[in-house]
């Protein structure tokens, strides 16, 4: 980051004006979220804002509602599976790209990030179509869809971590007699552990927040939390949605903080 000096910043009033604009933009960004969180404590059934009264009843409603709790648990199950799947597959691919890519590394990395360049609805509809012809269990296809959308993030993060590992370390271990597997386990993995862990968490976050894949591919008895919210919102409008959303926000922001502590979210966002 450039050091502070007068040339790299606009003048006093300019900078103050910028700070004000940025503040307003942050209000814009955070506003809806703040509203949801605040609305969740509304004592009345209306979604009016500002909320009237303070109550935790909607959180109670959430925990009492079987459909919401089931959806929440299912999302977690799906998220864990998708996270593990995309991290494992992503790690293997990342290692291949970084260590064996050579001159084709950029191309290989672009190909690996393919799902990020395809609209999610296209992915899910195509899989839905394929389901018509090939009998695959619904959960498998849903999981595959989620792994697909999580992979670009795990690969981006893990390749960045691997880049920080000196290839000479692996060469040294090799000359000392370690097999390829040993090298991975004793030299590479310990050094990229934070990166892998954060890829895992980020993949979970992506899977948990997805709607497009789940909407098309979820079979009977498989409802994710976003799906449940989506259908609920279209028919009713009580603050229970705000409560659920707040819980989801807390969960994900908490996980995001862990990732930030481990490697910084910016690295994973860097396609």
């Amino acid at each position, binding site marked *: 980051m450039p050091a502070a000096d007068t040339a790299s910043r606009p003048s006093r009033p300019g900078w103050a004006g910028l700070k004000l604009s940025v503040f307003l933009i942050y209000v814009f960004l955070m506003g809806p979220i703040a509203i949801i969180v605040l609305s969740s404590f509304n004592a009345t059934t209306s979604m009016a804002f500002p909320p009237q009264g303070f109550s935790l009843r909607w959180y109670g409603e959430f925990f009492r509602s079987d459909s919401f709790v089931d959806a929440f648990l299912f999302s977690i199950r799906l998220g864990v599976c998708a996270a593990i799947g995309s991290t494992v597959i992503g790690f293997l691919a990342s290692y291949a790209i970084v260590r064996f890519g050579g001159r084709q590394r950029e191309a290989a990395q672009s190909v690996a990030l393919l799902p990020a360049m395809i609209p999610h609805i296209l992915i899910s509809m195509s899989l839905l179509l394929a389901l018509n012809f090939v009998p695959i269990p619904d959960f498998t296809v849903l999981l595959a869809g989620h792994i697909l959308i999580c992979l670009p993030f795990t690969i981006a993060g893990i390749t960045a971590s691997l880049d920080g590992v000196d290839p000479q370390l692996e060469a040294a271990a*090799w000359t000392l007699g*370690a097999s390829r597997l040993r090298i991975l386990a004793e030299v590479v993995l310990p050094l990229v552990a934070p990166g892998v862990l954060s890829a895992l968490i980020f993949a979970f976050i992506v899977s948990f927040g997805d709607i497009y894949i789940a909407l098309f591919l979820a079979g009977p008895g498989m409802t994710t939390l976003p799906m449940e919210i989506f259908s609920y919102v279209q028919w009713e409008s009580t603050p229970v949605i705000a409560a659920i959303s707040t819980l989801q926000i807390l969960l994900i922001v908490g996980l995001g903080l862990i990732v930030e502590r481990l490697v910084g979210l910016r690295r994973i966002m860097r396609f």
Partner: protein
Amino acid sequence: MSTRETILALEGVTKRYGDAPGVVGPIDLAIGKGEFLTLLGPSGCGKTTTLQIVAGLLEPTAGRVMLNGRDITHAPPPQRDMGLVFQNYALFPHKTIFDNVAFGLRMRKVPKAEITERVMDMLRIVGLPDVERRLPDQLSGGQRQRVALARALVIQPTILLLDEPLSNLDAMLRKRMRHEIRDLQQRLGITTIFVTHDQDEAFEMSDRVALLDRGSIAQIGSPEDLYDAPTTRFVAEFIGDANLIDGQVVAADGQGLVRLQIAGGSEMVARTADTTLAPGQQALLMIRPERIELVDAAAPGTVPARVRNRVFSGERITFELDTAGGPIVCTKPSLPQFRLLDPGAKVWLQPGDCRALRAS
């Protein structure tokens, strides 16, 4: 050539990338047991590539690598029983010094008690008796280098390979480590291949030096061989300083003695390694700057010259002289008689040993 038994042999080893002209090779080399051989050369000459082929980190495009008579050309590093010391040490940052040095022994399934004994022993030998519990980033550069050495030696490899291990150290430490490594090598009697671009280093440490030029061995021999009897212009210029004067062969005995005539008419007798030099051919006369006598009168075998410049460097004086055949550099110890020679003075040069090289 030494009378040692050959441990490692490279036969026609070549490395090419795609259709590009060869990076290395063909190289033929035989290294004897307990020998300290240095691969010397400017950057890009292929010395590190050759070392990596020996270690098994790279595969040659053609040729063979033989270890004790066994063809190991395609064998992966774990099967080669060699210890490699990297330029940047490549110590595992997340392991303690002890674990770093013990790594190779663990891969060889040595029993734990023996590992502890050998590791502590080796750390003592390299002069680091108390650091086994520390992490690499807590050590200085010189200490890390010794750990890298210990790690490579503790497995008692057949051959020790060092890839410019001293380049990252400051000058004083470098000089000290040169002696320590050489001492260690001689004490353990381990066959060693050393890679460097520093000619002084190569000369101080090696039994033999192989000078590489653009992928091939220009000359291989003891340091004395390379200094006294360079076979090509490249070798003459890379090793030490050399005066090179164009000349024409006037007479040759076919056994290494020739007489050259240089511009200005003077005829010089020179030794040569090229026995095919014949009268009428163009050749280069090579004279080392410190092997020239300065006399004050003409005599057979002398060359007239005029002093152009005189540079005083403390222990010696360097004279830049002009002759009919071109500029010549002569160095002398800084004794009183030489301090009196001023620029513009006329002297006669009487070269000592001269070499004749084929003009390229």
